């Protein structure tokens, strides 16, 4: 009786990676005062990893270990000092990014903020509007369509950011601690939703988080970064069955992985 709900292929190493990061280092010029070429802030130190199509990977690491910087390099927002990022077929995929701070436009209402990516793609207003309504339902913001960001709580603003990142059906999702400001209940609902979206649509996801539970609940693989300058300290597969629910926390497998990650972080 092992007819599981569509098990994803366990072994993805045969497929062409969606994304290859090789020997990536980022050094920021020292911001306080004189910047000679050899002093700078080493943020990431020769990071290498691969992500396969439809894979969900999580980065765990202490504050300041360069997690945000890593996502920004992948998104093309920060130029690496050395090393490179290669995408499958050598073109940059369509990206949906959720930022650590919600980064909403204060002059746009909730629905207008969510619509933005479709607007930039030149998609008709009615179609964009309908899609945005759908996203609003998905993230549980019904009734707040016409609110301005200043009237939203941190958690609500973050959900607007999530809806905006998903609306244009990106190939690659980059999530920077997207659930950090949500209350526990909403956060767990969002985990389930995100799992569902990720399983339903073919998305590759790179997520940054502080929470071991979150990473084990969502990811296929968890990578742990060291203190600055960030190096990859641990890279573990999470072979827990899907769909995952709350009960999974009480399985011995989960406990073992959680312990392993906790030890790596400390």
């Amino acid at each position, binding site marked *: 009786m092992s007819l599981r709900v569509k098990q994803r292929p366990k072994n993805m190493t045969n497929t062409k990676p969606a994304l290859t990061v090789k020997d990536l280092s980022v050094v920021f010029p020292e911001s306080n005062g004189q910047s000679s070429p050899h002093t700078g802030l080493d943020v990431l130190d020769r990071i290498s990893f691969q992500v396969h199509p439809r894979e969900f990977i999580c980065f765990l690491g202490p504050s300041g270990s360069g997690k945000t910087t890593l996502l920004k390099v992948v998104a093309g927002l920060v130029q690496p000092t050395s090393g490179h990022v290669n995408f499958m077929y050598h073109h940059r995929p369509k990206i949906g990014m959720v930022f650590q701070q919600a980064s909403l*436009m204060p002059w746009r209402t909730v629905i207008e903020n969510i619509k933005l990516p479709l607007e930039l793609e030149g998609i008709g207003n009615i179609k964009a509007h309908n899609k945005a309504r759908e996203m609003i339902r998905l993230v549980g913001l019904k009734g707040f369509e016409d609110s301005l960001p200043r009237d939203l709580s941190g958690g609500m603003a973050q959900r607007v950011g999530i809806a905006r990142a998903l609306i244009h059906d990106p190939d690659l999702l980059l999530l920077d601690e997207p659930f950090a400001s949500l209350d526990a209940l909403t956060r767990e609902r969002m985990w389930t939703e995100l799992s569902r979206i990720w399983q339903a649509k073919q998305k590759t996801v790179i997520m940054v988080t502080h929470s071991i539970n979150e990473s084990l609940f969502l990811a296929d693989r968890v990578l742990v970064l060291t203190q600055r300058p960030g190096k990859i300290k641990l890279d573990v597969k999470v072979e827990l069955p899907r769909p995952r629910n709350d009960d999974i926390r009480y399985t011995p497998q989960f406990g073992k992985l959680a312990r392993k990650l906790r030890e790596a972080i400390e």
Partner: protein
Amino acid sequence: MSSLKRVKNILPAVLSIAFALMAWQLIVQWTQLPRFILPAPADVWSRFLKALMDGSLLYHTGITLVEIVLGLLVGITFATITGYALAKSRSLEKVLSPYLVASQAIPVVAIAPLLVIWLGDGILSKVVICALIVFFPVLVNTVVGIRAVPSALYDMMHSIRATRLQILMKLEVPASLPVLLGGLRIGATLSVIGAIVGELVDAEQGLGFLLQLGDFQYDTSMVFVAVFMLIALALFLYGVVTLLERKFLKWQA
């Protein structure tokens, strides 16, 4: 209900104007000054009606308004374009800022005669003077406004591959609009001064010309009428900016 509220809002202003008029009338009566030194409100009012009837008032006010509006348009266009370029390029800022600062050390009043000599006593010289006086505050506010656009929003726009034009239209313009309109508010007031300074140097038409004409002819009531029209123009421009702010900055309130 809202009209009652509106009445309540403007009531203090109306009362203070009525009070000022009364005080003015009383001063005229007590001091018994000759009319060519201090006309009474009633004298000014009848002079106003006369100038209105013979069409001269509207004509000269119209000329000045045209100078102001053209001057504002030219000044704002150049100031926002230059300001945007300065905000985007530190090296351009380094090259241009000495000139800009130096230009501010010269009062426009000082170069107005030159401009009239070079450009003639028609509308053109006034438009240029207006544009010059409007240029700097709008420029500064453009630079400040564009520089204040949060870098997180640039990142967000780049992550969804916004083009330069999309970044300008959908991020930079709306984000800097509060500061930009603040610059326009200052510019609008200054532009009235610019037009009058130009007309006082030399002109055949406009409120400045009317002002000078009244002065020469000891028609002091006319001078008062011209001054009040200038105030009306300034208030009108101020009102237009306020309307723009109401319309575009609802999200700020």
